[in-house]
């Protein structure tokens, strides 16, 4: 029974990683850049939602929508100001700029919202209960965990459909395959990449709300560690692959909880990362990553 309950904790933790990793992997797949500021966009999404519900007393639904819109706008602005001028620059230059953006967002949030942690309101509790108890209280599944897993699956399916079947999605895949060739085919590469950032940041807002609902403290540094963990998850699953991000996130969460429960709480992080290294040694492009054959 403890195994089952640990498994559930692992999945609920993993689905949080997964939902952040989806945004990561999407931007990486198309723009080929590691957007280290992604975790901080998540934090901004959390704050936007917190402010509208706690200070203005909004209903959660419009608050979440506003957070999505806010983050999308933020994503577009950041992309336009900081990343677009570097389109032809080496990828590491963009990486450093992303780190600069991450510092900027964190410190701006610190000045704007203060350093004291805020407690995120509990959206997902119904009739005073935050979850359902099964088997006479031995198993507890929180509503927010169920919602996170569901939202995760929905987003993954939506993204797969979007990139697979819509015109914009096809353009994205083309840009991801070969920027130059895509341009020659009449695809507006700049617009496509901007759209990717918009969608990625919108997803970050959803991730922010779910992250803060699961672990309801909100600080300017809230997004940074989950961001790194989600990046790990995205690589674990094969970066650029949408189902891979989901799988990677879930596995990372489950491994972390099991390492804590059955090996050592002290060394759990080391164990998670060691498993990651072993997996990458066996499968060098992640679990579901594409094996790119190099042409001579």
């Amino acid at each position, binding site marked *: 029974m403890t195994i089952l309950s640990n498994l559930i*904790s692992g999945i609920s933790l993993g689905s949080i990683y997964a939902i952040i990793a989806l945004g990561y992997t999407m931007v990486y797949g198309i723009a080929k850049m590691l957007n280290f500021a992604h975790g901080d966009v998540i934090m901004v999404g959390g704050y936007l939602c917190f402010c509208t519900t706690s200070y203005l007393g909004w209903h959660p639904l419009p608050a979440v929508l506003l957070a999505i819109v806010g983050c999308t706008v933020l994503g577009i602005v950041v992309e336009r100001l900081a990343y677009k001028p570097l389109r032809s620059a080496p990828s590491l230059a963009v990486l450093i700029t992303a780190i600069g953006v991450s510092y900027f967002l964190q410190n701006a949030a610190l000045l704007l919202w203060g350093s004291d942690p805020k407690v995120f309101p509990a959206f997902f509790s119904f009739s005073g209960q935050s979850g359902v108890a099964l088997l006479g209280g031995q198993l507890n599944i929180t509503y927010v965990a169920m919602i996170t897993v569901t939202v995760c699956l929905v987003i993954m399916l939506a993204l797969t459909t979007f990139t697979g079947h819509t015109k914009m999605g096809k353009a994205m895949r083309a840009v991801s395959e070969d920027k130059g060739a895509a341009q020659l085919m009449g695809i507006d590469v700049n617009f496509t990449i901007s759209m990717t950032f918009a969608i990625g940041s919108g997803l970050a807002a959803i991730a922010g709300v779910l992250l803060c609902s699961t672990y309801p403290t909100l600080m300017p540094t809230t997004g940074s560690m989950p961001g790194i963990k989600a990046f790990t998850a995205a690589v674990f699953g094969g970066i650029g692959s949408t189902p891979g991000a989901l799988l990677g996130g879930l596995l990372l969460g489950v491994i972390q909880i099991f390492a804590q429960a059955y090996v050592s709480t002290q060394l759990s992080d080391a164990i998670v990362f060691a498993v990651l290294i072993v997996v990458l040694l066996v499968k060098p492009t992640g679990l579901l990553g594409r094996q790119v054959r190099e042409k001579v």
Partner: protein
Amino acid sequence: MKRKNVCSLVLAAAMMATLAGCGSGGASSAAAASSGSASGSAAASADPIKIGGIGPITGSAAVYGIATRNGAQVAVDEINAMGGMQFELNFQDDEADAEKGVNAYHTLQDWGMQIVYGCTTTGSCVNVAAETNADRYFQLTPSASSTDVTAGKDNVFQVCFTDPGQGTTAADYVAEQGLAKKVAVLYNNGDAYSTGIATAFAAEAAAKGLEVVSNTTFPDDTNTDFSVQLSDAKNNGAELVFMPIYYTPASLVLNQAKSMDYSPIFFGGDGMDGILAMEGFDTSLAEGLMLMTPFNASDAGAADFVAKYEAAYGETPNQFAADGYDCIYAIYAACEKAGITADMSHEDVCEAMIAAFTSSDFSVDGLTGKGMTWGTNGEVSKAPMVVKVENGAYSTM
């Protein structure tokens, strides 16, 4: 190619000039910046005594550094308004990092600091204390509670309890009050403060006949999921969970314990203070929580300070702010006693202040304890206080 060489030499020279320039040009600008934070508005006939504060203003520990800065600033403003001795506080950011703490200390040296107030966090404080000990500055820390801070340094004093002291006192309290027989310990093993208290607690608990049935940790940066640790405590039948951790992760622990229907007595250290003031926190989660804190914001004695702090910074002060406030008043009392003036060198100030602090008739009545006295080892002696959360507010036990 030739031009390239010339250019790089010019650039190198320019860099040198900048580096050397910040040696000579830094002083006036630093003084200009500090005048913003200090309040020399009261009719100051005498020059102020320069107190240099160090603590995190940015980064993940900013909340604690800002509280100590603000608490101290309230005290400085009060003292300056009284006339007589004047203080000027220049508080520098160390991001809770040892290297940056030493940098901040050196910056304050350039400013002409006479007394060191800080640092807020242990890691930074141990390093700065080594520097102040060598350079002879008097140092008083509000919240760096490790014994390493004061060990072997005659010039460093603490206003907070030491970590082992707190752990031992907590175990004694639990045993004497008969709160529980089986206890669990949950702490942050990436943090010196948390580990220091937890280790001392576990040792003392065993000595007092308490059974530590669960001893779990979480890492510093992955402090969001506690389901495994709580299940372990629950399955081993712990009636009391001792968690010497800061209030931010503690709020998550309480939240997750509730969702798994586990309600032992939760017992925390002084880092837990502030949990009720968290914006949006459901205080019913903390009902029954016990913690050792030197400061209770709802005490009658603290009302004046709380009102001033709230008016200035818009939030209820926690024990970090109160420790900072007490630090400045302790410095004030010692300065009065030792007859410190603004024109004394920091070496003279240091020796006079050490003598004042360790003299047998020196004691300070502060918000965090009545009759605080200090020994030569720099540790404070004051009565510990345990509070329990009842109806969303502290009640002193």
